[in-house]
């Protein structure tokens, strides 16, 4: 008997339901699970809430889901990289929740770590503090921020072993490890699946207990842009 975590990408996205909240790793397209996103564009789901630093780029990555009208809301820190986000927002077809990038990352970590809320000085006295509770701690003002959690997380790593342990590649790591900790169902898209024991136990950034399924990447970011390398 074995747990087989490696599954077809179509099977992985079958777990997404309309109305779900989905975390999607990546800083722009760097470290973004492009193959999972592509598969999701072929699913008939709507009203998704996306927790991701950006909504991809115009017509790329998560930007395709936006164009398809599948998104109800986006929670992130920098939507400027996709000009269409503002347009959908202004037309009342997309809700936005903007957080400072550090607060965004910390809120996801908190969601995965069972932390009910945390106090940060970031954004105190700015428009992004509107409606948020403040508290004086040792003479300084802090904001209370809430954890972020999701139904599904789609992350991207460089390699997995068959148990589901993950290692990342350079700045493609970004939000992926924290997102892998903060969702009920976690799928990691990886470029390579190696045998267990082939990853250095000291260098595993995401232990396998966080990972429910693995899919093989098909779309990769190259110097020339997103390339379909087939499968």
């Amino acid at each position, binding site marked *: 008997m074995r747990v087989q975590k490696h599954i077809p990408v179509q099977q992985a996205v079958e777990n997404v339901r309309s109305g779900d909240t989905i975390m999607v790793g990546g*800083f722009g397209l760097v470290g973004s699970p492009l193959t999972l996103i592509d598969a999701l564009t072929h699913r008939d789901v709507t009203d998704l809430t996306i927790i991701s630093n950006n909504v991809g780029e115009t017509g790329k990555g998560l930007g395709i889901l936006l164009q398809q009208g599948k998104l109800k809301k986006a929670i992130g820190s920098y939507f400027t990289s996709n000009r269409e986000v503002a347009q959908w927002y202004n037309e009342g077809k997309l809700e936005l929740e903007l957080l400072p990038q550090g607060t965004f990352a910390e809120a996801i970590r908190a969601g995965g770590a069972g932390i009910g809320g945390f106090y940060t000085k970031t954004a105190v006295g700015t428009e992004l503090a509107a409606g948020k509770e403040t508290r004086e701690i040792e003479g300084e003002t802090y904001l209370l921020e809430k954890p972020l959690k999701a139904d599904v997380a789609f992350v991207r790593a460089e390699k997995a072993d068959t148990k589901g342990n993950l290692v990342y590649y350079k700045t493609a790591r970004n939000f992926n490890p924290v997102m892998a900790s903060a969702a009920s169902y976690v799928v990691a898209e990886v470029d390579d699946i190696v045998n267990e024991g082939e990853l250095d136990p000291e260098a595993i950034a995401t232990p396998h207990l966080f990972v429910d399924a693995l899919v093989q990447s098909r779309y990769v970011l190259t110097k020339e842009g997103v390339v379909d390398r087939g499968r």
Partner: protein
Amino acid sequence: MAGKEAIAKRAAEDLEPFSIINLGIGVPTLVANYLDKDSYYLHTENGMLGVTSVEEVEVDPLLVNAGKLPVGEAVGASYFHSADSFAMIRGGHVDVAILGALQVDAAGRVANWAVPGKDIIGVGGAMDLLVGAKKIMITTNHVSKDGSPKIVDACTYPVTSTRKADVIITDLAVFRWIDDGYVLTELRGEATLQEIAEKTTAAYRVSEELAAKGDPT
């Protein structure tokens, strides 16, 4: 040397060797071109310590800075996830953050993330850096494209933080926060005290040294 490059070069001269530096998008990114990569440690909030510039031929699409521009990897570099990266920033482990600005006001507050009337849809790491870095250095043109002052009495753009900027380096001048306000400590290029006074609406003091020298008459 173009204005932006000159600002970046001046900013580089202001940095202590072996300090941990985070460079914002725009002019700050150019500062890297004037730093010896063995003596300065560049942090980027998307998860890396040890950023260097990179030759076109060595570009790796998965190795970028916070502006999503390709960068290189210094010897002794390390990678970490975004929550750990911002823990470094918020926790006070970054010595200097060099940021651009739309405005800086007499209270030292920086506005650099949103323009009134335009959609507020991006903030990135600016608020975290302004709160967390030990020292804030602003690099900016002295006036905006339409000629209006950027160093103003009170920000009319939404502020990024209530924490003051320590140093402002423009194409015309250097201001340092000393005690309770900015002091003009340096004129750059052909700039005169008169010119700075005309192009700055924030109240500021003039350093004794500059005041003593005065403008050419």
